[in-house]
């Protein structure tokens, strides 16, 4: 058997229930891996060894008592540092929340806690999840475990790097415009963004509320199914969470894939700036899937992704400028005393927030301001309605859509940080699904120059089971 920290959730859960090893041993293996790699990778903002080991001990005792436990019980994981964890630091990668201790727990981490999961630490992210490289963290950058001169992607870069390097068995992230799928692609792990409304946003620090989707990163698709089963479902604390019943995801993924109808959006393979080798890797994955389903992919038409990008970069900052108004230096977080209350707001926010966050707040303030609202925000919302219609139309004739995750493999640290527009373009293929709210997964489909590349599989609203099913069969055949 490979080192304990390299196990999947399925393998670890089997080992624990068959008493091949204890949760304390499994947790120690992850903590040892963290101790040996973290000084280079810097995937974590906070690590809680004592907390984790005491959770693990609790599990071992419960198992000895013969209690029946969930498949995630006793298994170490990490949460992106924008999930509120009661009494444990939660910074969102920002100076303004450096000393914040949440008085409450996010629904997702609470559900994992109830399932007996072991929280090892909180991972690095672009400040308030704004970015695609984790370089916008106010604390430090995280490195890609496959090549330390490159970014892990973002904004859930710490969560992706921690899973890829075996520091934890799986991790939680958030995906607003691609922030789980893109780092999963860059780090060679599986990243699932469920349908908007499938998972509860309660207790996760808000960036753009109509887009933020609680998501997760795992080593395999089967593991993604297990985590979804535990975290998804209606939460009275999030009025946008859906009460549609969940499927039995671990069973669904085993069903055959023959006869599934697959669509290929032509517009996505004709964009400028797409690395030809990445395109080849994605197209050979499409070919493999055609063999699996026994049919050719059908061409479908979605709007050119650059329209979605322009639409997203108006809607998201508008919501950001409103959501981040709460950081006022009064209720919590950094406070820089000014001459009067107004000046205290200016100084606290001016010093506490980083460059990308300020840029988006200014952008959003402009898009929402008097005289520009119709031309920018309202126009973008109309385009969003059209993008949603595109997907509705495409899903009349196919079950799933295949696309690249990102136009390139992981780029170099520092390469795009001074050019925000170039950084935004890296989200080109993940944004349309976020605007439409449909589920999508990034699953590894090869390598370019030693760097992993992901394939994106996109499904109908609340049809995670079919997305996971095809991803699982593809993974098994790869």
């Amino acid at each position, binding site marked *: 058997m490979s080192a304990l920290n390299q196990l999947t959730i399925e393998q670890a859960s089997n080992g624990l229930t068959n008493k091949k090893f204890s949760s304390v041993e499994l947790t120690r293996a992850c903590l040892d891996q963290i101790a040996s790699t973290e000084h280079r990778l810097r995937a974590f903002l906070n690590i809680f060894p004592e907390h984790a080991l005491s959770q693990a001990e609790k599990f071992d005792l419960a198992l000895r008592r013969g209690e029946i436990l969930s498949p995630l019980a006793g298994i170490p994981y990490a949460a992106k540092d924008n999930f509120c964890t009661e009494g444990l630091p939660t910074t969102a990668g920002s100076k303004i929340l450096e000393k914040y201790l949440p008085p409450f727990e996010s629904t997702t981490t609470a559900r994992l806690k109830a399932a007996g999961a072991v929280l090892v630490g909180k991972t690095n992210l672009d400040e308030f999840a704004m970015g695609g490289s984790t370089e916008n963290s106010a604390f430090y950058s995280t490195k890609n475990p496959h090549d330390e001169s490159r970014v892990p992607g973002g904004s859930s870069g710490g969560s992706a790097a921690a899973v890829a390097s075996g520091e934890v068995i799986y991790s939680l992230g958030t995906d607003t415009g691609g922030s789980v799928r893109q780092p999963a692609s860059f780090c060679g792990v599986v990243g699932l963004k469920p349908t908007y409304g499938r998972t509860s946003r309660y207790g996760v620090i808000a960036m753009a509320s109509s887009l933020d989707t609680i998501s997760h990163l795992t080593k395999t698709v089967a593991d993604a199914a297990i985590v979804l089963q535990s975290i998804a479902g209606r939460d009275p604390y999030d009025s946008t969470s859906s009460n549609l019943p969940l499927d039995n995801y671990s069973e669904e993924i085993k069903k055959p894939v023959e006869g599934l109808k697959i669509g290929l959006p032509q517009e996505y393979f004709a964009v400028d700036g797409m690395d030809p080798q990445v395109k080849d890797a994605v197209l050979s994955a499409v070919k493999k899937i055609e063999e699996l389903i026994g049919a050719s992919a059908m061409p479908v038409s979605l709007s050119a992704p650059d329209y979605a*990008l322009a639409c997203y970069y108006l809607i998201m900052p508008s919501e950001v400028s409103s959501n981040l108004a709460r950081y006022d230096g009064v209720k919590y977080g950094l406070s820089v005393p000014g001459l009067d*209350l107004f000046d205290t*707001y200016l100084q606290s926010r001016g010093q506490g927030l980083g460059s990308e966050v300020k840029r988006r707040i200014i952008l959003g*303030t402009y898009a929402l301001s008097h005289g520009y609202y119709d031309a920018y925000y309202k126009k973008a919302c*109309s385009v969003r309605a*059209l993008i949603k219609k595109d997907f509705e139309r495409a899903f009349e004739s196919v079950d799933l859509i295949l696309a690249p995750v990102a136009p390139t493999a992981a780029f170099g640290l520092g390469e795009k940080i001074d050019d925000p527009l170039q950084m935004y373009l890296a989200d080109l293929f993940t944004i349309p699904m976020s605007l439409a709210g449909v589920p999508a997964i990034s699953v590894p489909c090869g390598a370019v120059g030693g760097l992993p590349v992901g394939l994106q599989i996109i499904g109908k609203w609340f049809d995670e089971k079919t997305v996971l099913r095809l991803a699982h069969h593809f993974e098994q055949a790869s």
Partner: protein
Amino acid sequence: MSLDIQQIDHLAKLARLALSDEEKKLFASQLASIFGYFQKLQSIDTTDIEPASQILPLKNVFRLDEISASGEEARQKIIANAPNKSNRHFVVKKIL
């Protein structure tokens, strides 16, 4: 499309953000190129399209108006995060 420093000043004030001169200059030029990119939306015909501010077919999700007490402990945890507090209150500079 161009933004001048005065416009950035105005937006920064609306957003309650203190910006350095350097940031203002940088944002003015970066936002101009970003808004330039946004112009492509104007070529899309959206006549008779109902704008979508969110994508779920949800409307007015209500719950019963019941008080669920958070308790003194939660109150203390909340107030403990305040940079400037007095007993159970947030302290701010006087505004009148």
